């Protein structure tokens, strides 16, 4: 199996080093108290969390200075394997929720962190994941303010599940909605598609591929701040996670009652990812991403926005990949480069590899 740990993360020694999680770590007593203190509170280092109250509290005044609406989101992370090239479940749990806030135009501020841990899980791994969460939270500039820990008997969960919820503030005048795509708008993406999906397939180690694909897992809030500074009137924006680029664009097409046409030759995709898809009979348009946003903007805004995106580390390979039209309503079309087009529909279930 292909696992890769973030080499910059060093695990400090605690009295739990080398031990495994037992049911007593979730039983509410001293063991749980110590685990929370040593692994989570000491790692996340936030003033709200250190109070160890039953809830985090924050002043309203500084929030109202940032905008006129709160944004809130939640997501659960159940990825297998927990560690994969370029990331781990902890990094994912932060980026996913931060990005869900950011693509709505919100400045992400506070996150919760809830852990469901399977009995027998190595505490060092848990510590490593907590450190990875902290590192990513710092990169995003957000604070983990409250949390919860549950331990379930062996077999009742697969190693570790994480839920994070987040709160952010949306500045005045920003109206990013799936229903705002208009005729002649253009579609922009911030880089290569399918890296995360391909990395997970690769990391499961069932294929023994002779290369390694890294996940694209990254926080997007700083890139999005730059984008909004250049173009506050972004019409639609979502991160293309599960279901990939195809699914997000279908959501836009349906909500806005427009047709979206993609140009196949303009969609950035790595050769390695294409290779994996060729071998397995998968379509990269449906592969998951964890650091990709799709935005729909006025054509007149596109060039300046693209320039800003390309100048940000999270958007170096940004590209304009399509345009918005009127017919057929609610559909996404792909121009194949052969003069042919095909409709890119939503997936029925999960993508299944073809026989031959």
């Amino acid at each position, binding site marked *: 199996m292909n696992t890769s740990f973030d080499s910059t993360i060093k695990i400090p020694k605690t009295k739990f080093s080398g031990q495994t999680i037992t049911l007593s770590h979730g039983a509410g007593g001293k063991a749980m108290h110590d685990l929370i203190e040593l692994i989570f509170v000491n790692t996340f280092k936030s003033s709200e969390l250190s109070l160890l109250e039953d809830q985090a509290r924050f002043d309203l005044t500084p929030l109202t200075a940032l905008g006129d609406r709160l944004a809130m989101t939640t997501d659960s992370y159940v990825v297998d394997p927990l560690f994969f090239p370029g990331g781990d479940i902890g990094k994912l749990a932060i980026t996913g929720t931060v990005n869900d806030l950011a693509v709505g135009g919100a400045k992400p501020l506070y996150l919760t962190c809830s852990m469901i841990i399977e009995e027998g899980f190595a505490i060092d791994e848990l510590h490593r994941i907590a450190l990875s969460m902290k590192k990513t939270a710092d990169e995003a500039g957000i604070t983990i303010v409250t949390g919860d820990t549950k331990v379930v008997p062996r077999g009742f969960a697969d190693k570790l599940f994480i839920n994070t919820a987040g709160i952010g503030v949306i500045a005045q005048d920003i109206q990013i909605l799936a229903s705002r795509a208009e005729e002649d708008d253009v579609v922009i993406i911030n880089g290569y598609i399918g890296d995360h999906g391909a990395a997970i397939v690769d990391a499961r180690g069932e294929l023994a591929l002779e290369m390694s694909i890294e996940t694209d897992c990254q926080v997007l809030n700083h890139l999005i701040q730059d984008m909004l500074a250049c173009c506050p009137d972004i019409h639609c924006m979502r991160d293309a996670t599960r279901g990939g680029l195809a699914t997000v664009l279908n959501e836009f097409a349906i909500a806005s009652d427009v047709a979206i046409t993609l140009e196949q030759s303009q969609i950035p995709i790595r050769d390695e990812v294409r290779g994996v898809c060729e071998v*397995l009979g998968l379509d990269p348009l449906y592969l998951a991403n964890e650091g990709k946003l799709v935005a729909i903007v006025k054509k007149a805004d596109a060039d300046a926005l693209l320039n800003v995106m390309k100048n940000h580390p999270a958007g170096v390979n940004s590209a304009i990949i399509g345009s918005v039209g009127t017919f057929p309503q609610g559909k996404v079309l792909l121009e*194949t480069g052969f003069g042919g087009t095909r409709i890119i529909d939503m997936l029925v279930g999960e993508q299944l590899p073809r026989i031959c």
Partner: protein
Amino acid sequence: MKFVDEFRDTNKAKTLIKAIKEIAKKIAPRQSKPLQIMEFCGGHTHTIFRYGIEQMLPDTIEMVHGPGCPVCVLPMGRVDDCIALAENPDVIFTTFGDAMRVPGSKKSLLQAKADGADIRMTYSPMDALNLARKNPDKDVIFFGLGFETTMPSSAFTVLAAEQEGITNFSLFCNHITTVPTIKAVLDSPDMKLDGFLAPGHVAMVIGERPFDFIAQDYNKPLVITGFEPLDILQSLWMLLQQIEQGRSHVENQYTRIVQPNGNTPALTAISLVFEQREFFELRGLGSIDHSAVRMKPAYAAFDAERKFSVANIKIAEPKSCQCGEVIKGVIKPWDCKIFGTKCTPETPIGALMVSSEGACSAYFNNGYDKKKLA
């Protein structure tokens, strides 16, 4: 990507389409109806839709999407048999991914998995053999499915299991054969086809000669075809040349892969392990003589059909389903009474709606609807 992008070159495609249009124009005055060309293989169907090839062809050419999607032609009763095998608590049942969603009479393998059966997707029968090595207390069954393309890997896996003395691996053999299936399509009284794009990967195994009867006995031209868009376009152009010149020969476009005599080690492994069945039922086409293989008695120990009691119940096809007529090119998918209404990729009733390689599913997913095109 080397060895792939060369066969997707858009400029070459444009040249080929131009050549196809020119030759189609020459043939047109002799036609009373559009030329019907069948691509037999589901892999070809997939490429044709993926690259929008059908829309680029002149109106005088109509593609008929044949029965060569092994998932599509799998009869319901066999899916039920799979589920019965998989629900045995001592069994790990392994299968190619796209067989997971094929509906049985009560449920699919995907549903059976959710209900608790140990069903795992593998990419190769060798992965199933690995599972057998790792789980000596379980019986690992591999769902052998597909035409001659996937037959050699099943045969080699059985031979490897025998050589290694692995006793907890068996094959549930549902491999089907190309030639009798094509013959059944040709013998159908409502057959109107004018030529074939023959399956390149089947030909890689069995060679060119088994297709001779199509050209010689039925006077239908045929081109063995690769799976990239330029392969399809070049083969269409070759086929149209035969039609224009009034010839019917077996020609090989896929020379980079297909040898005239096929692949000898693969054929040897197949003949060691498998023998013809008297008949086998294919969904949409009914029972066809010699259209499948089973395992030889010498390999009974690796034959799931012999090792476990398999009911082999025949389930009647849903009456409303017109897959057979679609496969033979008698009607287009959208002419079927239940296409896109009762029968969709989410709730497939007919075989052709099941896999992304099935003609109906491809039409549906690509938004092909008579009303929209008109």
